[in-house]
């Protein structure tokens, strides 16, 4: 599978969209760092807005553009006809989206944040609390990547995929306000809403922990399997 990773990495390095994402990541880091807050710590600086952007804008665009462009440019034809199995192609794309999300949304801003902290002289707390937040965030980013990859492979059209995924990112945030069972289900079991609770990790009960780990894992399993199944049967035009 290493050849597929090398291929994805190479195409990402050569894609303009990668550099737009990097610029956005740098911007987020600066804006967040210089936003006045009571407590200056890395998780507090980034969590809320970064997760929001991950769900609603950055990851969907990343998935939509990167995967669907492969279909529209025809390069997906080359991938499928290259002697690599469709399952491996799909899983590689899924991994690259997850890792890409983590690098762009956390890796780059974190490095800049640390650099700025040293320059400005802020203390940055790297403790268990921070690691728990980062770990859970990575899990949720992979869950979003699996959802986005599924729809990107389904629609296979950059424009439709990007718009659909952005709307899909916002919708649970609105449904969250609905009373009754629907609102309850959305609040307790949709990764889009649950991910907003990551900052409260210090107050999690065992049940919360279970839900915060199980929901993204089940999401990855369901959407990953559905996506692989769908791509295995999809005809490439």
């Amino acid at each position, binding site marked *: 599978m290493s*050849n597929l990773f*090398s*291929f994805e990495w190479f195409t990402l390095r*050569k894609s*303009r969209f990668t550099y737009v994402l990097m610029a956005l990541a740098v911007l987020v880091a600066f804006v967040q760092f210089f936003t006045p807050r009571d407590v200056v710590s890395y998780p507090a600086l980034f969590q809320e807005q970064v997760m929001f952007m991950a769900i609603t804008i950055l990851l969907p665009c990343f998935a939509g553009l990167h995967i669907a462009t492969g279909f529209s440019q*025809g390069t997906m034809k080359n991938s*499928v*006809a290259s*002697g690599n199995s469709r399952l491996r192609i799909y899983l590689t794309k899924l991994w690259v989206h997850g890792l890409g999300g983590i690098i762009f949304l956390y890796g780059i801003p974190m490095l800049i944040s640390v650099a700025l902290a040293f320059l400005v002289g802020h203390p940055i707390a790297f403790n268990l609390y921070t690691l728990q937040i980062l770990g859970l965030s990575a899990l949720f980013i992979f869950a979003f990547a699996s959802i986005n990859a599924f729809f990107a492979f389904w629609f296979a059209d950059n424009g439709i995929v990007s718009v659909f995924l952005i709307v899909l990112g916002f919708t649970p945030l609105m449904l969250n306000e609905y009373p009754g069972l629907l609102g309850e289900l959305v609040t307790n079991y949709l990764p889009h809403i649950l991910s907003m609770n990551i900052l409260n990790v210090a107050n999690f009960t065992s049940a919360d922990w279970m839900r915060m780990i199980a929901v993204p894992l089940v999401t990855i399993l369901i959407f990953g399997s559905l996506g692989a199944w769908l791509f295995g049967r999809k005809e490439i035009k």
Partner: protein
Amino acid sequence: MNDFILRTNNLTKQYKKFKANDDVSISIPKGAIYGLIGQNGAGKSTLIRLINGLAFPSSGKIELFRKRNKRDLVEARKKMGSMIERPALFPNMSAYDNLEAHRLLKGIPGKEVVSKLLEVVGLENTGKKKAKNFSLGMKQRLGLAIALLGDPEILILDEPLNGLDPLGVVEIRELLKKLNQQYGITILISSHVLGELQLVATHYGIIHQGKLIEEITAEALEEKCQSYLILKVDNTNLAVTVLENKLKTTAFEVMADGVIKLFNYVEKSGEVSGVLFSEGVVVQEVSKQGESLEDYFINKIGGNSNV
């Protein structure tokens, strides 16, 4: 027995009620240049997409390097290079980067192969020019270079001559001949440019409305397309006797309307007319005729009304 690299067995691809490919069985021997001929929408691209694993057959089998099951076919495609419908390129990358990306995709070791292939297709001087700014001919050549990555044993090219200027057509034709003759690469090529196909193909498959109408070698086709003399005479029976006894030939065919097709003496129509006249046969018309690949193809698919 022929060593076939690629075979399809009663391959059918059905979209609802429409059969894009209907019971297509082709056999491509090792070392052949197989020309797939058909009109737009005849089913050529569908067949090529099925072979490449981009679409799935409704029924029938594909056999590539003697591999038939799904997993083995995926593996066998590593020995295949293809360009389907149009070259699939990264528009914002240079020719070099496009090839490098595909080299990585196929897991081919050694970067030097990229420069070598750029030279083979004549794109070594394109520098950092992006593929989106290439002419169609340059894109076709880059697509061909991508297909050649990994020293494939079979090349599958769907309309590779599209958009090429006359010089480009000659270059690609010569390149294909070289790849076939020097490197032994088997080639499946679909094209509308029948005249060009005739210059390279060793085998043909004629496909019409999803069905394979005929599979024929270049030699057999040449025989069928050979030139002949058309003789219209006042007494067909006497003319036949004269041809057999005086000209000592049986290489003729008498048509239903009494017209004789004479397959030898093609360049000696004067001598034939003279002998017939001297034996009392009045020759009303004598003309040289013969079918080109184009004529043959048109006749095969049912005449001009189908073109």
